[in-house]
């Protein structure tokens, strides 16, 4: 019996080592490639977000005091009730609602390109904002907070990197799931608004996003970004939304326009 078990272990270990990288690519023992080389999906192009959900909070500037659906706390409620767009304009803060934590919900179009092999660039026509997703794998340097902050990106890997994906006792090891998701974590954000009517997020906000590409049976491409806003200052719990973007054939409708506070 022991000999059989030993034999199975030997034979099982060979394919386990062969499939060590699980998810995607990679030489044996090395991490999978990131950046443009490692892209499992193509997010480049022009995209529009038709407003199917949260319509009256996105297509219009909601009424003052309307924070429905956002898990704000008492501190945020005070700011919501005190919102004054004229003050924001006077202070040159018309772009408060176009920061990274809220920009994907503003009606508009995106133009996504590779700035270089390790930087994915998202330009928005609403508010003419630019987000840069850095695939360097390095921690963000200390910097001035900004509307778009610093975004560290990686293609999601669900198999364990660098080691066996699983050892089978008599069964072939788990191959691991080939993820097609782009994970992005953004910090160093300047305080802004989750909605145009002054629902706030603070300076200690961490924004986590998951970009998932999918297609309709007709072939029409979309991506959906799941956005998790974690703000210990103004949110009782992380605020989670999903926004859907439809690919357009060209940029003929891309319409850059400045931020507005109203």
């Amino acid at each position, binding site marked *: 019996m022991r000999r059989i078990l030993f034999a199975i272990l030997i034979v099982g270990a060979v394919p386990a080592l062969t499939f060590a990288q699980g998810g995607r690519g990679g030489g044996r023992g090395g991490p999978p490639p990131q950046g443009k080389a490692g892209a499992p999906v193509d997010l480049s192009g022009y995209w529009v977000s038709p407003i199917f959900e949260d319509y009256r909070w996105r297509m219009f500037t909601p009424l003052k005091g309307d924070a429905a659906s956002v898990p704000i706390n008492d501190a945020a409620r005070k700011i919501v009730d005190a919102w004054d767009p004229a003050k924001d304009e006077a202070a040159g803060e018309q772009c408060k609602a176009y920061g990274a934590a809220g920009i994907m919900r503003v009606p508009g179009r995106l133009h996504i390109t590779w700035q270089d092999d390790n930087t994915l660039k998202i330009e928005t026509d609403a508010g003419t904002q630019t987000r840069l997703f850095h695939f360097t794998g390095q921690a963000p340097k200390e910097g001035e907070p900004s509307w778009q902050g610093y975004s560290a990106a990686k293609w999601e890997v669900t198999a364990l990197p660098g080691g066996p994906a699983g050892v089978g006792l008599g069964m072939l090891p788990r191959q691991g799931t080939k993820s097609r998701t782009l994970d992005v974590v953004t910090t160093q954000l300047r305080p802004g608004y989750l909605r145009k009517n002054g629902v706030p997020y603070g300076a200690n906000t961490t924004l986590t996003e998951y970009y998932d590409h*999918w297609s309709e049976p007709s072939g029409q491409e979309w991506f959906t970004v799941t956005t998790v806003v974690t703000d210990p200052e103004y949110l009782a719990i992380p605020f989670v939304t999903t926004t859907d973007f439809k690919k357009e054939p060209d940029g003929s409708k891309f319409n850059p326009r400045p931020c507005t506070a109203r």
Partner: protein
Amino acid sequence: MKIFKQIGIAGLLVLTSVPGYSEIDFTGSWTPLFHEDYPERFPGPELGDYMGIPVNAAGRLRGDSYDADRISMVSQYECRPHGSDYNMRGSANLRISRDLDPVTQAPVAFHTFIGFQSAQRTIWLDGRPHPPEYADHSWAGFSTGVWDGNMLNITTTHLKEYYIRRNGVPRSDQAVVTEHWTRHGNYLTVIVVINDPVFLTEPLVRSENWIYDPGQEILPSNCEPAPEVPNPPGVITPHHLPGTNPFLHEVADWYGIPYDAVRGGAETMRPEYRKVMGKPEHVPEKCERYCDCGKDAGACNLH
């Protein structure tokens, strides 16, 4: 020699074994997050609110004619579950389980159970075909799923007629619904695409999030239809005659929105609509309804 024979046998066993499966495990208990459209999804949509729906004239008129008294007066409506597409809007808590083939351990199906009206659904993963066109329809429909990396793509046909929104905007029994499920840690993201040639001019795309909640208990929902309200004389099915629904302007007035936008339609959903939309007839000074809905991750109250 014996050891080599044993290695050979073991090797054969391994080589003929089916490899592990590339898939995400969705099983478990999930609670819906209402961080989008909370007032519509939970307390209920305002009458005449068709915003965000690429509805056609037929769907609009059906919504205008709808009278919610139908649920009380027509007993056959009382215990209806939601359609499986509407259930993914998060009407109630969700439990997902799965069947594995006992020999190959290959996943055969996911099963969902939603607490409201004990709605159950099977998503077949074994490649079986959908029933023919003339087979019966159900609230859950017939669903099959195919993996694409870490995303499960689901196609559902054979749905009974139901609603896109609970204020009467219908979804026909000819619709085909596709879904895309993915999981990121403790978040389950479900994208639902409704293709309805009867009431929509283009696909409706909505996406919801659920959070893993292993501690929840979902109880069965027992419902027995019973006459709740006597029908007025001559009334079998309550409805508004065309042009007589008195409630259609409420949502525009309550929230300061142009009436045309409230009527929905694909053209109202593009960003460029903001250039051409009219002005609202009435704009309140500030929020008066559902202003604190969801505050402190709590309930959604009107005031």
